[in-house]
């Protein structure tokens, strides 16, 4: 049994396996299938200052080894989270991280401020990369300037752990990672979804109500892994890797490429117990290769 503990910024994780925002609800949706306290961290749904209805149906299209979604940040707003959800999740023995989105810098800041005071929320993940909302969202994550601005503003307002989630829809993701590192992000997580599209040829209409949507799942894994590798070479803060992880072997690829922890998203839909299998699989790998600690494999790729 190797040591799976890992610290990321100000967070202490019992293992490097977290769940990705928007794919694991508030955890409770999965509690019939697994013991939530075994997971390293749960990143809950994208949360905004006010309630949002999200985009019209249809919001989903299956694609080869992946899916497109266009949920568009449907959520009941940060106050609802604080008053109704937080009390039900705060005692789960894992890191509950809130994924924060907004249309303006002020919205990000206001939301972050409200979360700052929640004792059992050790950090937030700033979503500057959501492709499914008209204003803000991804736009912040696709230029160094706007990424810096939003991170700087939130950093002033939020004192606990600040993860910044990067968009893969850019020419040079390292550049954005360096920009948010400079503004005081404790870590970066990547990737959010790739912007994609699907068409129903019989109806000659887009499958999604929003025309385009975010691609996730194993289809994107090679791109995600490359970006994690590039960013891990560029920044000094920890990198959290995600995008298409389906099993322990995928997770280990990301860690070898330089990720200190990983998140699992779409795979939860196919196997609600996948997180536990990945934790056990990483442990088995470490034992088989005689590593004492999971930290031994972070960035251990030989090139």
């Amino acid at each position: 049994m190797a040591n799976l503990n890992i610290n990321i910024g100000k967070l202490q994780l019992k293992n490097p396996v977290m769940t990705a925002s928007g794919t694991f609800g508030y955890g409770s949706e999965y509690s019939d299938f697994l013991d939530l306290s075994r997971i390293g961290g749960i990143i809950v749904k994208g949360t905004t200052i006010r309630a949002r209805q999200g985009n019209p149906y249809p919001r989903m299209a299956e694609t080869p080894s992946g899916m497109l979604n266009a949920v568009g940040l449907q959520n009941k707003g940060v106050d609802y989270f604080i008053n109704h959800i937080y009390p039900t999740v705060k005692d789960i023995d894992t890191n509950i991280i809130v994924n924060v989105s907004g249309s303006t810098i002020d919205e990000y800041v206001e939301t972050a401020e409200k979360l700052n005071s929640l004792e059992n929320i050790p950090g937030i993940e700033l979503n500057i990369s959501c492709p499914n909302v008209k204003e803000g969202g991804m736009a912040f994550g696709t230029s160094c300037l706007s990424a810096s601005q939003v991170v700087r503003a939130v950093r002033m307002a939020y004192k606990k752990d600040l993860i910044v989630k990067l968009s893969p829809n850019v020419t040079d993701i390292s550049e954005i990672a360096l920009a948010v590192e400079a503004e005081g992000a404790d870590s970066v997580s990547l990737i959010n979804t790739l912007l994609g599209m699907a068409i129903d040829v019989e109806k000659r209409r887009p499958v999604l109500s929003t025309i385009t949507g975010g691609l996730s799942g194993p289809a994107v894994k090679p791109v995600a892994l490359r970006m994690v590798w590039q960013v891990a070479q560029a920044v000094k803060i920890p990198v959290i890797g995600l995008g298409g992880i389906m099993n322990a072997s995928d997770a280990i690829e990301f860690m070898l490429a330089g990720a200190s922890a990983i998140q699992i998203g779409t795979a939860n839909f196919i196997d609600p117990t996948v997180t536990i299998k990945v934790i056990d699989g990483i442990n088995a790998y470490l034992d088989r290769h005689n590593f004492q600690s999971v930290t031994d494999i972070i960035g251990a790729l030989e090139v």
Partner: protein
Amino acid sequence: MKKFMLDLSVKENKILSDQYHLLILTSAEKLPEILPGQFAEVRVDGSATTFLRRPISIHYIDYDANELWLLIQVKGDGTKRLAQMTAGESLNLLLPLGNNFNEPVEKDASVLLVGGGCGVAPLLYLGAHLKRNGFKVNFLLGARTKDDLIELCEYERFGNVFTTTEDGTLGERGFVTQHSLLNGSNFDYFYTCGPTPMMKAVARHALKTKAICEVSLENTMACGIGACLCCVTDTTEGHVCVCTEGPVFNITKLKWQI
């Protein structure tokens, strides 16, 4: 209700027509309790083009025989693969998912279960359930043609069966809502599942006759358990998940143009 991830084994795959297959599943363990209207998310192995699970209604559950029935209509690669399952193969399911049909408050209520196409799937178990609880059950089943009206004798075990076909090859010719039954009698409760235009027509008839009407929606789903918010329908309370707050909705809650 507690949800399970179970590996059930295929006991039989009955070919009902070129489109329809009945998968009879069983297990060494006792099957969990499932309510009529609920569904399962089925993992499709061995299809290169099927990535997500497929939502499939509980067609029938026989606790004595410990059998779970799924009615499969072949649409694309996922259902095609399911229709190829052979006895002894194993199928991974998340279940029971979603809410359920609500039985009438009045014990003497007259009820009509209206199904079209694959939408008949949840109605067999609902009919059995209603009958067991003392209701007099009527089924109205519609299809394009005779060959798609399958398993009629199964429905007859639980109530009267009326049928329509668009080409008149069995039962009355036309759509379900054109069946003479709807002119003659008044029903207090309608339960319907099938193509949206059919369900809307049933809903319209129910509204007109001041009956209660529950419909079961088939929105595309990713997780099936309320985590992804992909399956929403617009309701009087805004967007809600069909997989958790549905698939069964009272039509007064939906924002349908009817």
